[in-house]
């Protein structure tokens, strides 16, 4: 039994290795092996997400309100008995609206899909207005200003009081925002602030780029380790 499991692991890992080589072959040039792996990942991804969204999206957000769910006595996993329940029938509305999205397949009735689309946009916009205003704007403004404690006793980088660096964060934030403000021409003092803003933004973009490079290199190292482990396993 253990021998079989080990053989199955070897076969599955070899499949993963072959697909990894198929993709790396693109470094030479576009070729049928790469195209095969590319199309395979598209299909597998669609199948995976369809199933994942059924179990983690449709089941908890729709079916659990319209049908009776129970736990499997052996595995403990929750499953749908398909017995209807009638206390939350209003959940049929999003289901019908969801189905109305499919009228896009018909040229004659495609206009019906505007209703669910409108509802979707209305709900998401309505939720986004206060939440985004709070999380992206007010919390960031608060974090920028509240950090300014005028604590001259704590020294930060280069022995400079931390409050000085806090003030520089505020100036950097304001100057970066000025750079994005195009309703006024970037000339004079305003232009100088915008210039400071672009330098601040470049440091931010440099940091992001550095992190991205490191993340990709980490993935490459991980793939090389995967190949090494496979090699050790088969030899």
């Amino acid at each position, binding site marked *: 039994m253990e021998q079989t499991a080990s053989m199955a692991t070897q076969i599955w*890992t070899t499949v993963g290795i072959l697909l*990894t080589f198929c993709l*790396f072959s*693109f470094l030479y040039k576009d070729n049928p092996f790469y195209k095969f792996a590319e*199309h395979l990942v598209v299909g597998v991804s669609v199948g995976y997400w369809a199933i994942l969204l059924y179990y983690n999206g449709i089941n908890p957000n729709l079916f659990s309100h319209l049908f009776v769910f129970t736990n499997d006595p052996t595995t403990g996993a929750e499953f749908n008995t398909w017995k209807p329940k009638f206390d939350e029938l209003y959940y049929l509305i*999003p289901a019908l609206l969801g189905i109305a999205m499919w009228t896009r397949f018909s040229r004659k009735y495609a206009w019906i899909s505007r209703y669910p689309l409108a509802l*979707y946009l209305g709900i998401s916009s309505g939720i986004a207005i206060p939440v985004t205003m709070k999380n992206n704007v007010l919390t960031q403004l608060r974090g920028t200003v509240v950090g300014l404690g005028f604590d001259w006793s704590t020294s930060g980088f280069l022995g400079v009081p931390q409050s000085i660096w806090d003030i520089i964060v505020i100036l950097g*934030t304001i100057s970066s925002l000025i750079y994005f403000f195009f309703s006024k021409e970037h000339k004079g003092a305003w232009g100088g602030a915008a210039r400071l803003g672009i330098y601040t933004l470049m440091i931010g973009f440099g940091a992001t780029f550095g992190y991205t490079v490191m993340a990709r290199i980490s993935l490459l190292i991980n793939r090389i380790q995967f190949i090494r482990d496979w090699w050790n396993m088969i030899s």
Partner: protein
Amino acid sequence: MKQQIPLVLVFVFGVLLAIQYFVPSEPSQRFYEVALDGLTVIGIFAMVLGIWSQIHVGYNKIKRRAEDWQYSVVTLVSMFGMAFCGLSFMGGLNGPIFRQLYNNIFIPIQAAIFSLLAFYIASASYRAFRARSAVSTVLLVAALLLMLRVIPTGPLADPINQIGSWMLMVPNMAAKRAILIGVGLGSVATALKIVLGIERSYLGKD
């Protein structure tokens, strides 16, 4: 009916959901939960359009024996195969074959695709990092410092680490905050335009 009702729906639900945020009562919370569930359900049903489109394009390519039609067979077979292995009687998300396909096809290919980008990002770095102006020099120095910070550099490790930390906590934080504030204001403005019916491109032409 084709234009006005959707506009009314967007306005009514947009305003209701925006007000709901400021009404901390149980019915208001319940309304929010149902609306959020509805949002998820409509989104998932809309995904069927994408899947159908994928099947339609692939099927037509195979039917017409178009160039590289064989790859469409791969896409369709893998799509239906993966979905089939995830059905309830196959064990669902924890089904043995579904998990093996996920672990040994989905994960290795995705990781390999993103690791391929390491090579392309290296050539992009060469082009981006040439210090042709003061601004690009700042970008170059910031990226290099950040990368040097995580590798052993002997006696230089401590100063590099200090400069790197300062860079992350002062100018980088200022830039990120400005970007977040800008994105936030832009998102709110766009959402308001949609709710108020100023932005109505989603309605199409007729």
